[in-house]
């Protein structure tokens, strides 16, 4: 585990060791209230996908603000184990599990956690059923429907209903409902994306109707990846929960789609070189802020742009006032393009309010890939 120089609680935030991942607690609280508030008095609930931040302290805050589903979503078995250790008792996995060793781990988890597992194929159902029977446990199962863009998941309609029936009849399994994942925010205008996402979810709702006509009980209809249009999806009758990961800290990729939210996570960096008048080098590169899904931005400045991001360095182009404002040793705040891949790089979140360090949160699920 990395050991940055820790500063005492109450330290002005720009005195932290750099580069550091800093969360503004007021922004986080604002975002939780804005999103959960919408869900508070309607039957649909928000199930936070905690992979974006990987941080139990933030997940607990999410479940403390009413409007949530009472549980979380995670990607894999090791994340489920980690969050179970941190007191979470209702966990949905969003990717299928087939390895015997991982299935044994899931069986062990069912003794303390209500788990929901996705499946998208007949062999996948057999594998789950055999593991459950062999370990004398019962798994709750969601049939994962492939909508758009193409990914894993079963075809909507009859093929998914057939899988639901297979689950329903399989020993050790309980059919719980359907799940799907929406499209990316990188395609089309906001209106076009809403049309696309509603069509996706409608396919799941139509499948639900078919399943009910076939005599199946559908308790859960869960729509994932909807930070940008959670309220639209929540208004579709028959959806029971919406999953979203980015909303508590909203990265700059999502921000234009959620203007009522406040970007809550930034990387504090330091200017380490000013080799030319129009160029500054900061000590945050790809190992401190990811560029897998886009370049970071300099927060609060239009006259400084991130021109490049090497492994260890950020390369800034400066113009106007920035040329005199950015000196060696100065703090530069970088807005994150993508939370998921940036929280994969740090061990700690430095949580601040009004520019003062208030808490240090461990990103406990960082590096848990299995």
């Amino acid at each position, binding site marked *: 585990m990395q050991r940055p*120089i820790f500063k005492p609680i109450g330290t002005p935030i720009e005195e932290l*060791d750099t580069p550091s991942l800093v969360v503004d607690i007021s922004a986080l609280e604002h975002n939780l209230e804005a999103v959960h508030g919408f869900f508070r008095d309607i039957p649909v609930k928000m199930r936070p996908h905690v992979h974006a931040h990987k941080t139990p302290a933030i997940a607990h805050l999410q479940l403390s603000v009413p409007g949530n589903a009472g549980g979380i979503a995670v990607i894999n078995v090791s994340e489920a184990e980690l969050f179970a250790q941190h007191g979470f008792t209702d966990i949905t996995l969003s990717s*299928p599990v087939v390895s015997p060793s991982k299935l044994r781990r899931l069986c062990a988890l069912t003794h303390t956690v209500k788990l929901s597992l996705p499946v998208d194929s007949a062999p996948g159902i057999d594998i789950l059923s055999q593991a459950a029977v062999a370990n004398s446990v019962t798994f709750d199962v969601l049939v994962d429907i492939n909508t758009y863009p193409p990914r894993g998941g079963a075809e909507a309609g009859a093929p998914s209903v057939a899988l639901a029936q297979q689950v329903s009849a399989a020993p050790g399994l309980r059919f719980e409902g359907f799940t799907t994942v929406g499209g990316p925010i990188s395609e089309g205008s906001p209106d076009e994306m809403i049309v696309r996402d509603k069509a996706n979810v409608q396919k799941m709702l139509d499948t639900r109707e078919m399943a009910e006509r076939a005599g199946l009980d559908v308790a859960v209809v869960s729509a994932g990846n909807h930070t940008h249009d959670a309220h639209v999806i929540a208004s579709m009758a028959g959806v029971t929960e919406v999953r979203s990961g980015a909303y508590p800290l909203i990265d700059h990729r999502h921000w234009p789609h959620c203007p009522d939210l406040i970007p809550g996570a930034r990387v504090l960096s330091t200017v380490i070189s000013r080799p030319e008048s129009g160029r500054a080098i900061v000590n945050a590169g790809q190992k401190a802020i990811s560029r897998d899904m886009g370049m970071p931005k300099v927060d609060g400045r239009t006259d400084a742009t991130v021109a490049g991001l090497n492994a260890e360095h950020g390369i800034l182009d400066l113009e106007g006032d920035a040329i005199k404002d950015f000196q060696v040793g100065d703090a530069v705040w970088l807005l994150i393009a993508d939370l*998921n891949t940036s929280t994969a790089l740090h061990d700690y979140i430095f949580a601040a309010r009004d520019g003062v360090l208030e808490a240090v949160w461990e990103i406990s699920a960082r590096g848990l890939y299995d």
Partner: protein
Amino acid sequence: MPKPYRPATGTPIEELETPCLILDLDALEHNIGVIARLYQDADCKVRPHVKNHKSPQIAHMQLRAGGTVGGVCAAKVSEAEVMVQAGIPNVLIANQVVGRDKLARLASLALRAEMLVGCDDSQNASDLSAAAVAAGAEIGVLIEVNTSMGRAGTRVAGDAVTLAQHINNLPGLRFQGIMSHQIIDGAPDREARFTKGRADMQVVLDVKAAIERAGLPVETVSTGETWSYDVAPTVQGVTEVQAGSYVLLDTSYAYMTDFRIAAKVLGTVTSIPRPGFATGDVSIEAMASAKGLPTIEAPAGVRVTRLTYEQTFLEFDEGVTVKAGDRYTLLPAQEDMMVNRWDQYIVVRNGKVEDVWDITARGRVH
């Protein structure tokens, strides 16, 4: 899996929990050997960059193999701390170190190891001096010279001369020489590497000559990269090469055919929801993708089409049989960014686990 995950020595790799980062010991030893043999008898020596592997274990292997300056390069103070704690006697932080706390940490390290640092700014040099004096330490300084990166580094020789004189007059500092990083595009052939490598190194040597004309000896000229590892020993005046990528390699260096890819990620196919398409358990975070998608080493006939936060999307040809539970091996497009997302290497030889090494400097970005 609760960390750390330690499969027993002798475990067949087929039984490893996935995804996991595996280190092919034969390939690692081969790569270290290629460099050691070339530099053993050359005037120029290698200074292995540890930012790529972040493992003291591998750093010690590199130094033991020979052909080195007896020390390593690191990118950050916190990375250097890991190496010094692990007994590495000499570390060049090939970067600027800025800020009171970090300078104090650097000076503290200089009490226990020979420390060198890059510098391109006179105020930063004065701050380095103050930190060294306060600690009672001596820090060697290499002026960073820009050649082809457009990043840090002095832009004109005159500035480097002025800075060298300034450093030479500061207490607690030892003006040691100059350094530079370089970059080359695409997949150059040997001739292109030599042409570009020599041109870049000449820029550095011109700065050396200018500083020497001003009366200051330039003991160290530290430059060159994995792609110019065989160029540097042919250029009179270059004393050491900062090479890092050669030890693990990745597909972006496929043109460097003397070396082999040593670090790979092992994954498991999790579903075949429709013909010709499978999902696997290796995510974008486990691989890094800014330099492109990973390449499938095995099985044949399977391609990576996308990495998501959760999965690998795989496509396969008709006639190729893929089933849930099958293993696949991914070769990285960007090894250092991949390694920085893992806590340990599962070290394998002949298909079996031989050891597990901590990636001790993972996340050491400070």
